[in-house]
């Protein structure tokens, strides 16, 4: 069966109907907002403006989050209470301990390396002739899906037996240097590090753009004063650039850390979580939706939540400080 536009027509029709209906309802809403009862507290207006979003959030995020919390204390079917058994399971099962170790590796390496690369590159190309093109090159992976990025990097890691030509860039480089081609994605824990490379590749652009803006905001007087005092490049980096962009750097680090904790697409596309590469988000999906273990899946989700909360709180506080300074 080939592709036929006729098969796709119902989808496009439903798309049009849905969007038109939605916009119609919103239009009606705006019409009735100004025709409600007049009162000091604008209850009527607030309800119409906020109603749709609040109902969606209550049904889709608030209630489910509590429900997942409860499910983490129940068995696979979600029917019977098992107390803390899932939490004990999480910290005692060898496979899950590997998952936790991998997640730790991700959080240790990905944010720091992505941010460091981004910062270095931002400084290197700052005010160069080709700055905007040079930045676009690093930034481009941000637009690519993790799935696309994973396929790109799987191709880099591709393996062919040593008798024939290599098709993957990494193995070819090894061969050129006189080494043996490797099945990179099979050997733990190196394979996890190679998956981390993909995330660094995607996130460095984000770090670079945000830090570049911060670097450009450093006042000239400070730089000038330092120059008159006879500082060298390293001193300037450590004593001026780094301290000035530090709040921004923290925000970038934490933002990438949160992304890293939730990484799912890369692991799933590169290895499917096999060969000891699974991480919390991937294991959560596998437990809840492949094995039907709702309790264990929910426990992993709750653990993810617990890990993310302190990071986000620090981020919000730093963010506010950055804004107040700016």
């Amino acid at each position, binding site marked *: 069966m080939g592709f036929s536009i006729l098969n796709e027509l119902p989808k496009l029709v439903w798309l049009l109907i849905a969007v038109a209906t939605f916009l119609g309802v919103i239009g009606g809403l705006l019409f009735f907002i100004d025709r409600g009862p007049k009162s000091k507290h604008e209850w009527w207006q607030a309800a119409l403006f906020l109603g749709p979003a609040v109902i969606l959030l209550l049904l889709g995020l608030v209630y489910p989050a509590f429900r997942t919390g409860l499910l983490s204390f129940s068995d696979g079917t979600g029917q019977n209470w098992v107390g803390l058994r899932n939490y004990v399971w999480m910290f005692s099962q060898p496979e899950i301990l590997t998952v936790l170790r991998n997640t730790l590796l991700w959080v240790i390496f990905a944010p720091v390396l992505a941010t460091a690369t981004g910062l270095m590159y931002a400084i290197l190309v700052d005010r160069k002739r080709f700055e905007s093109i040079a930045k676009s090159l690093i930034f481009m992976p941000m637009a690519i899906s993790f*799935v696309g990025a994973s396929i790109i990097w799987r191709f880099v890691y591709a393996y062919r037996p040593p008798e024939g030509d290599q098709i993957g860039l990494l193995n070819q480089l090894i061969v050129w240097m006189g080494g043996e081609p490797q099945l990179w994605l099979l050997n733990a824990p190196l394979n996890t590090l190679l998956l981390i490379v993909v995330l660094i590749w995607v996130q*460095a652009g984000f770090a670079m753009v945000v830090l570049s803006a911060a670097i450009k905001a450093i006042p000239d007087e400070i730089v000038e004063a330092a120059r008159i005092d006879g500082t060298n490049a390293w001193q300037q980096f450590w004593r001026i650039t780094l301290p000035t962009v530090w709040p921004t750097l923290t925000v970038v680090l934490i933002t990438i850390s949160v992304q890293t904790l939730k990484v799912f697409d890369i692991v799933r596309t590169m290895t499917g979580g096999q060969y000891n590469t699974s991480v919390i988000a991937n294991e959560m999906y596998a437990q809840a939706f492949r094995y039907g273990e709702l309790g264990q899946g929910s426990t992993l989700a709750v653990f993810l939540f617990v890990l993310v909360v302190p990071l986000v709180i620090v981020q919000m506080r730093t963010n506010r400080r950055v804004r107040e300074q700016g």
Partner: protein
Amino acid sequence: MSQQTQTPPTAPAAAPKPRVSRETSAARVRKRLSSSTATLAAIVIAALWTLPTAGLFISSFRPERELKTTGWWTFFSDPQVTLANYRDVLFGTASQGQLATYFVNSFVITLPATVFVVVLAALAAYALAWVNFPGRDWLFLGIFALQIVPLQMSLVPLLRFFSQGVTIAGIQLMPAWDLQGALAFTNVWVAHTIFGLPLGIFLLHNFISQLPRSLFEAARVDGAGHGVIFRRLVVPLIVPALVSLGIFQFLWVWNDLLVALIFAGGSAETAPLTVRLAEMAGTRGDEWQRLTAGAFVSIVVPLIVFFSLQRYFVRGLLAGSVKG
């Protein structure tokens, strides 16, 4: 991005030599480091970041036999170009990928999920900023806090809503959806809309709450209600913010795998490109003639959006639009 690279303001009196005052600390660090080393380092990083994509792109145009037996770098000594990979992967049989169908699905999923979020977030953000009702600040704080919740926390129960309906205290508030065929897209739309709202409301609230109060007071004096003010006054003023949010939501939904896997399933009926590609990478991981072309089919739309609207993208990024 060139719009972002403005020269920082210089104090006119304190800058006797304009040539010097234009230098930033970064520029100085760069200059003091041996300039050639710095350039080399920049080129190495740029190459590392570009080569993997370039290799995949070149490979997608190489004939299957060449692609599977020689490296893409041999293309330069022995250029052979074919469009067969794209033809097969887009319009071939189901086992070859049939990505054209999934491309339509991606489009059908992404467009409404973007429109819904932008419109609903704008309405909510306006009310949270300018409509006067008790408890407003608490509600804003609550929505703000929801950004913390990883979407993993809501996947299982939300999927249950769609399959079993909503029952609270024994009363069926909403029947099971059990939608078939094209209607099944509704599940993904709703899921993506919900997950996009907290960040969307937060971003637009930042923007809308900074509009001058006098604007609203003048309109109220003229007898305009909130509906009119929102439509005629606020929406035209926040178009750049709406575009920023729209781009982010678009890229996020188009590139998403997790939500689609759970709420759209894996069938050709509703699954988007990402789901199909991940599946192909898993089951046909060595069919590089399909994976390379397929990856580019999925990448091309975000790249177009990204490069044509890069200015808004960067602005949104600096305003904090990264899903936590």
